Every structure is written in C-alpha cells, then in structure tokens.
C-alpha cells in the first residue's frame, strides 16, 4: 500500500495503517526531537507524543508532504517541552553523546591541558556540535536542524515553521553564524573530522 492509501486508511481510524506510517517516519522524527532537545529521554517522549497527536489529528492533514506535517508537530512538541523546562529547570549530571552514553570529560567543561591529542575523538566533535546547537535560541536550532540535518529545502522548512522564506534565510544565517562562533572554541577538532570535499 502506498503512502496516500495508508493516510486515507489512517484517516478512517485504521491504526495498523497509521502504524506503518510511524515505522516509515520514526527515525526522522526522533532525530529532530533529539537535535532540538539534546537528550534521549526527552526525545523519546516527544517522538511518542508526536505520533499520538498525529493520529488524533490526521483528519486535519490536507495533503502535501507528510514529513513536513509530522516535523511541524514534533517541533511544536519540542517548543512545549522547552517551555515546561523553563518553568521547572533541571541540570543533567553528565552530558550524553548520540548513543546515550555519558561523555566523560566533555571538552567544554574539561581542563584542556589534561587532554592529550590522541583523546580528541570523533565523539568529542559530535558532542561539541551538539553542545553548540543547544546554545542556540530555539527558533535558530529548529531551522538549522531542518535544513542541515534533515536535508530539507528552504521552501519545505518554511512550511514546517509556518514563516516566509525570508525568515528561513535570516534565521539559518544567524544560526550558522552563532555556531561558527561557538565552534571556534573547538576548531582543532574540525579539520580532521570534517570532510569538506564535495561541498558547494
């Protein structure tokens, strides 16, 4: 069954059809939640919440890109979660990497002199990038994640955030500008771990 047929069945309340859509999109939605929220548990909750909300609201989906529609829901879910955190702030004991492992001596809190060159690993660069992403204002974080991680084009990203193309361009530029400043603290990690080949 193709996506349109699955959506049609899901609109009629067919949970099995909807679950096939869940399986097709869960990686995309989890990624977005993780990159915006910065921790596995919150991303897990946001992903589940997104699909529950999508099921209840599938009748309001008017066609077009289901990916964009789901990303819009997860983005709103992340906004809600971050607003909730602001009201009740908590501090994690240790930052985690992409796999949920605690990062020992992360670069941004470690004594630089205590880090021998050989311990500069790929996970550290990922941690640094995630750290810099987390420093961004939410609307910047969302747009850079949609375009540079999800690989959306500007028009699709504008649909997700429900703003004009000009807003997408300006937020993306400012996000990249702030990331550039933040990553300057980790610039020794960049040349070895980042391939610049095939870049525009």
């Amino acid at each position, binding site marked *: 069954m193709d996506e349109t047929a699955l959506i049609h069945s899901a609109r009629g309340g067919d949970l099995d059809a909807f679950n096939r859509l869940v399986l097709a999109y869960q990686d995309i939605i989890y990624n977005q939640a993780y990159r915006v929220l910065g921790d596995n548990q919150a991303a897990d909750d946001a992903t589940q919440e997104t699909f529950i909300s999508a099921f209840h609201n599938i009748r309001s989906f008017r066609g077009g890109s289901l990916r964009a529609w789901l990303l819009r829901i997860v983005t709103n879910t992340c906004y809600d979660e971050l607003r909730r955190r602001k009201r009740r702030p908590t501090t994690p004991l240790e930052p985690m990497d992409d796999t949920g492992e605690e990062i020992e001596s992360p670069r941004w809190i470690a004594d630089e002199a205590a880090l021998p060159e050989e311990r500069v690993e790929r996970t550290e660069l990922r941690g640094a990038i995630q750290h810099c992403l987390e420093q961004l204002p939410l609307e910047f974080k969302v747009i850079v994640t949609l375009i540079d991680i999800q690989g959306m084009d500007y028009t699709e990203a504008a649909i997700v955030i429900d703003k004009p193309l000009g807003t997408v361009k300006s937020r993306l530029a400012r996000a990249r500008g702030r990331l*550039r400043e933040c990553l*300057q603290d980790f610039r020794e990690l960049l040349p070895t771990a980042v391939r610049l080949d095939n870049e525009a």
Partner: protein
Amino acid sequence: MVMRISERDLEVLSNYLDGQLTTGERARLEARLQTELELRTVLEQIRQTRAAVRNLPFLRAPRNYTLTPKMVGVRRQSPRIYPGFFSICSSSNR
C-alpha cells in the same frame, strides 16, 4: 579570534553556500571575495560549520513508536455478534 561581519553579509554568505543567490548577487559577492580576505575567511568558517553539522550522524530511533489502541483511546473492532446467536447457543445446550 572570531571575525565579526554584518548580519547582511552573514546572510549573503549562507545563501551563497546553499545556492540561493541570484546570478547578479552571486557575481557581486564573488567580486568582493576576490579582494576581501576577512569575508573569505568567514565564508570558509561557515562552510566548515555547515559541513560539521551535516556530518552529524542521522540517528535511528531507539525503539518503535507504533501505537496501541490503548494509547490512542480506541477499541479494536471485535468480531460482530449477530442477534439471536446466544439464543441459538442456549437452545442447543438444552
């Protein structure tokens, strides 16, 4: 040291990297890049930044997020029970 540039230039550089400039805007920027070292340096830094973010691994969901009827408050359709079924059963048991 982080070089400072205007927000307008930052946007032009970001758009340039993503191929979002018109032919005229692109030509104007490329002419400036020939002579402005600072602009060239920032362009390279933004290019590296963009590449670093794009190199983040695309994570797989740690589990399946399929929904159960209970999670969404719906009941699975149970087999239809036809009127008269119980009376037939009870009469056959007599």
